[in-house]
């Protein structure tokens, strides 16, 4: 990005560096949502469906982890992925994959906790019918997640919003490398430190607009989907 340009000029002129940053931000945060969903959705569903000793404690823990500080997650992943750490041989530190890993860790509790809440309510409604239909446990989980799909969009959006907005974790594990691991949020932090406050604000506005657009799109999908299917 050219120093001295405003964010608006960068958008209008189609600045390649800006678009690379936007693309990486979206790639990292959406991948993190996908990875976190693979764990968080089934975990939340299982917590709604099962009763076992320690379930209450586990739910409290997952709820508390919704507030995990991104720097703590970042530092943990950093120590894991560092060449001197247990997963150092993977060589993932300071790559987008490390950023996806850290953000997925950050938002899995959010997706799991919100999924459990939604699935709990739905299971109370469905329990008798499912038992009467002799539905197998695996099919119960799949049915709950499928039938709650429009409510679960909110859980995924909450996860995405948190991932896209955080700077602490991606800064530590990504390293804010120009044209490689620089995201919207780390770019904003960098421009702020360069004293380029108008550009930093402008990038902030672009980030906000992106998050708004994705939320609007999800809202649209939900509205159309609910009208047609549920």
């Amino acid at each position: 990005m050219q120093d001295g340009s405003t964010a608006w000029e960068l958008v209008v002129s189609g600045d390649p560096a800006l678009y690379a940053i936007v693309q990486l931000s979206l790639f990292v945060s959406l991948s993190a949502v996908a990875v976190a969903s693979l764990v968080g959705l089934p975990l939340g569903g299982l917590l709604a469906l099962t009763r076992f000793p320690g379930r209450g404690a586990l739910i409290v823990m997952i709820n508390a982890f919704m507030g995990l500080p991104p720097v703590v997650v970042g530092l943990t992943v950093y120590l894991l992925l560092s060449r001197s750490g247990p997963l150092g041989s993977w060589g993932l530190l300071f790559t987008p994959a490390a950023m996806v890993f850290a953000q997925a860790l950050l938002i899995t509790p959010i997706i799991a906790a919100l999924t459990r809440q939604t699935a709990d309510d739905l299971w109370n409604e469905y329990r008798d019918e499912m038992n009467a239909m002799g539905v197998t446990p695996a099919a119960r989980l799949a049915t709950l997640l499928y039938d709650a799909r429009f409510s679960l969009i909110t859980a995924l959006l909450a996860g995405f919003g948190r991932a896209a907005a955080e700077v602490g974790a991606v800064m530590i594990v990504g390293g804010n490398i120009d044209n490689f691991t620089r995201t919207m949020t780390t770019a904003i932090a960098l421009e702020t430190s360069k004293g380029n406050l108008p550009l930093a604000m402008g990038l902030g506005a672009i980030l906000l607009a992106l998050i708004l657009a994705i939320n609007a799109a999800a809202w649209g999908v939900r509205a159309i989907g609910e009208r047609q299917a549920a």
Partner: protein
Amino acid sequence: MRGPLSELPLVFDRVSQTLGGVQVLRDLQLTIAPGAPSAIVGPNGSGKSTFLRIAMGLSRPDAGRVTWGGQTDPAPRRRAMLFQRPVMLRRSAAANVAYALRQAGCPGHRVRGRVEELLAQASLSALAGRPARRLSGGEQQRLALARALARDPELLLLDEPTANLDPAATRAVEDIVRNAAASGVKVVIASHDLGQVRRLAGDVHFMVAGTILESAPVADFFERPAQPKTCAFLRGDIVT
């Protein structure tokens, strides 16, 4: 899809059940054998719904023994139940029936054809693609019946199936039930609607305070009730 084991006769042997400190069923003794529909009648709170839940295998009694065709395993094989307020899955009417078919083990290539048959049976063919939760109360009840019949049941338990329906919808539901009974499904129906009992049932079991007070063929029950409480109930008195 058809298990080798029969669900019938369904035998309740001195079954008791306490829920939230209240004894809902008390040494209940009842045998449901193949044949015309059996009706369970009785005042609110007499234990009809609890009886049906145990008969379906959804609850286990505190005391006594329940057997289905001589088996004690409560897993539903060829039983189905229609709840008073059936829950529609968040999908289309057709997908609701298809879901029940797949859960009952219907082979994939036959699902489509069976869905069409069942929806036609419930006069819902025109609404197949409609989201189930957008259907009217009567349509939902018919869809729930189609879903129950998807299990190809030998024993069909109905809990107040027309409690909230207008006469036309009631007639539509009763027609489906009558057809099912005619094709050999054993129907057990808990109902407040004594007219409905007269129209559908072959025999009647009168339940008060968690136990069966009187069992009789439908004509005898209404014309020659044996117990004073039955007479009072049929007169419209409050019976406890």
